[in-house]
């Protein structure tokens, strides 16, 4: 008998908690977003001219303004192209990675199947990078090239975890065969369109203790100084990834996303996750028409 009120109370509590849960499931979760700028249906790198307006300062890597590159105040307007070839031809850790990538690639592709798995025709690596990100029928999802390098290496019995140095080194080696060729992904239809739309939304979704979105830094306060760092435009960036960071770290794009997230007080996600891949698709579309250049470097 003494237990009855307790049981009543517990069942009452259960009802309250269940009702609260049902309400949670029925209503859209409250999230905040940074407002979109006009991206259009088929973005390209030069669209930056009507965004940050820096396009004219980085549209041609061979003809950057040296004074602008040397200026502490205006360097950000060159969008980190000043450490790309051909403007900067100096040797750095990115070249070392390219050599390492070649060595690994030759081991992996001894029987020719690695290249075929990645989508190369007759083993030709030229323009292979331009096929990514893609909807992959084998994996039944949109993937970046590094995810496929992991997958295809596994088929050859080698572990090349997405984001690891060796995976990224192979990516640099393969990407270099597309140097000078403009990125071109079609986000106007199919799974890439869906991925682009999801990536666009994620890029503007606020998260973390700061309540920042990617767009907080790269749209709202682009070009402003954040204690020694100045966020640059999100247009035209993808064409020089993977890159060698001058803190002596070879980084794939997703590894950089994890660092971006941490710097902004946002919990990072797994390398190769659908979320990071969708942001990669969104940003690749914003680099359309801009030519590939690796090995590259940046701070």
């Amino acid at each position, binding site marked *: 008998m003494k237990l009855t*009120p307790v049981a009543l109370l517990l069942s009452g509590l259960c009802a*309250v908690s269940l009702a609260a849960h049902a309400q949670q499931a029925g209503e859209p979760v409250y999230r905040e977003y940074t407002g979109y700028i006009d991206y259009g249906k088929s973005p390209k790198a030069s669209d930056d001219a009507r965004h940050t307006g820096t396009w004219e300062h980085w549209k041609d890597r061979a003809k950057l303004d040296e004074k602008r590159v040397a200026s502490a105040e205006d360097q950000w307007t060159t969008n980190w192209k000043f450490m790309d070839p051909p403007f900067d031809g100096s040797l750095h850790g990115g070249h070392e990675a390219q050599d390492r990538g070649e060595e690994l690639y030759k081991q992996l592709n001894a029987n020719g199947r690695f290249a075929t798995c990645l989508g190369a025709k007759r083993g030709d690596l030229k323009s292979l990078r331009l096929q990514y990100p893609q909807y992959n029928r084998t994996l039944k999802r949109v993937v970046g090239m590094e995810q496929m390098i992991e997958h295809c290496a596994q088929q050859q019995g080698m572990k090349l975890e997405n984001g690891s140095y060796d995976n990224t080194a192979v990516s640099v080696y393969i990407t270099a065969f597309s140097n000078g060729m403009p990125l071109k992904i079609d986000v106007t239809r199919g799974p890439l369109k869906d991925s682009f739309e999801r990536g666009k939304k994620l890029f503007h979704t606020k998260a973390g203790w700061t309540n920042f979105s990617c767009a907080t830094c790269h749209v709202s*306060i682009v070009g402003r100084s954040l204690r020694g760092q100045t966020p640059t435009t999100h247009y035209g960036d993808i064409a020089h990834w993977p890159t060698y960071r001058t803190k002596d770290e070879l980084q794939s794009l997703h590894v950089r996303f*994890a660092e971006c997230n941490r710097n902004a007080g946002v919990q990072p996600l797994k390398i190769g996750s659908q979320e990071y891949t969708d942001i990669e698709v969104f940003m690749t579309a914003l680099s359309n028409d801009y030519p590939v250049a690796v090995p590259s470097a940046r701070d």
Partner: protein
Amino acid sequence: MRKQLLGLCLALVGATPAMANDALPSNLLYDASRPNKTIWPLPAKNMGELKWNDHRQDLSRWPTLSYEDKRPTAKPRKVELQGPLNGDAENGKKIAMNTQRGNCWACHVLPGDPQGGTGGPPLMNVGSWGYTDAHLYQQVFDRRVANPDTFMPPYGSNGVLTEQEIRDVVAYLQSLK
């Protein structure tokens, strides 16, 4: 007996949201066995696997970009400063000029920092602008109440700083003349 029941009831009600939050998305860089939970990848040279480092704090406490994350953004919250400020300006300065705490200097120029950011207005002499303590307290606690489009972090609503720490920051800001 009644008091005990009430206690049990409150404990259970209190536990409900916490239990919901325990179900973290599966695709976070998160390792419950590590000291700060949040981890980050280091591509160590000539290796086919990543090495993992500990982030300085557990970031999984706040909403993430994971599609599985159903936690809401903390809604804008209007607060009223109760009683006198009683802030410790020295401590407020330590919070404001520490990258791992308030990190105010990332966006604001503060006295003694040659690198001050330009994301927000310079606060070199904010103490002479005539703002009340209550106004500044609200701005630090959650500036979205005044401007929904602000990108200033809601230090109070997101539980980044405690109420006393915000009082300390306000005392520091008011001392800048």
